[in-house]
């Protein structure tokens, strides 16, 4: 069974530029999560989708971050414009509906904002 796929794996941009990350969850997983992991900290949930609807986006900085999951499968997380403090690893995870706390994580995208 293929795992959660993310791309790109690494990205370096200058502040005020835009960036997008892509995630393809495990086949059949209706729930998808985006986490931000700043160096030296644990992951923090940014947004959770159930199919193509948002379940929780309470910690998403909506002035610059956006995410979509249009067809209920893969998802895109965008930052526009980026700030230095956005430098982090962005992790995507997925799970089956009705099976709480069984999240499978992708390898992450490491973003460096200079």
């Amino acid at each position, binding site marked *: 069974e293929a795992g959660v796929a993310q791309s790109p794996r690494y990205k370096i941009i200058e502040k005020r530029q835009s960036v997008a990350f892509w995630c393809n969850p495990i086949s059949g997983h209706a729930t998808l999560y985006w986490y931000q992991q700043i160096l*030296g900290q644990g*992951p923090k*949930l940014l947004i959770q989708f159930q199919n193509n609807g948002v379940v929780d986006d309470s910690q998403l900085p909506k002035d610059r971050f956006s995410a979509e999951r249009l067809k209920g499968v893969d998802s895109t997380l965008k930052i526009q414009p980026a700030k230095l403090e956005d430098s982090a690893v962005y992790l995507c*995870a997925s*799970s089956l509906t009705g099976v709480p*706390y069984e*999240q499978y994580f992708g390898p992450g995208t490491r973003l460096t904002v200079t």
Partner: protein
Amino acid sequence: AQSVTQPDIHITVSEGASLELRCNYSYGATPYLFWYVQSPGQGLQLLLKYFSGDTLVQGIKGFEAEFKRSQSSFNLRKPSVHWSDAAEHFCAVGPRARNTDKLIFGTGTRLQVFP
């Protein structure tokens, strides 16, 4: 406020030695409890979890953890560490609620293993 504390930022042990990583939580009620491992360049992998029942839980790779309600702790242990255990280890909690599985992570403990 809900929080998870991992007081040890970095731990170094010799291969074959025993290991204990500490985790304390602050929560309104006893949450679900988890330990994850993250190897360099890899995503998080679930080592073990505690939902209810026996307070000593067994996980993958020979790890175990003990839930102590009186101490609000969920320490991770392994009797004999292998070089492949070198990684970042995260403790996490989640609410016992039907409509959410939101995880709150600690800051992690980096485990280094010497041959």
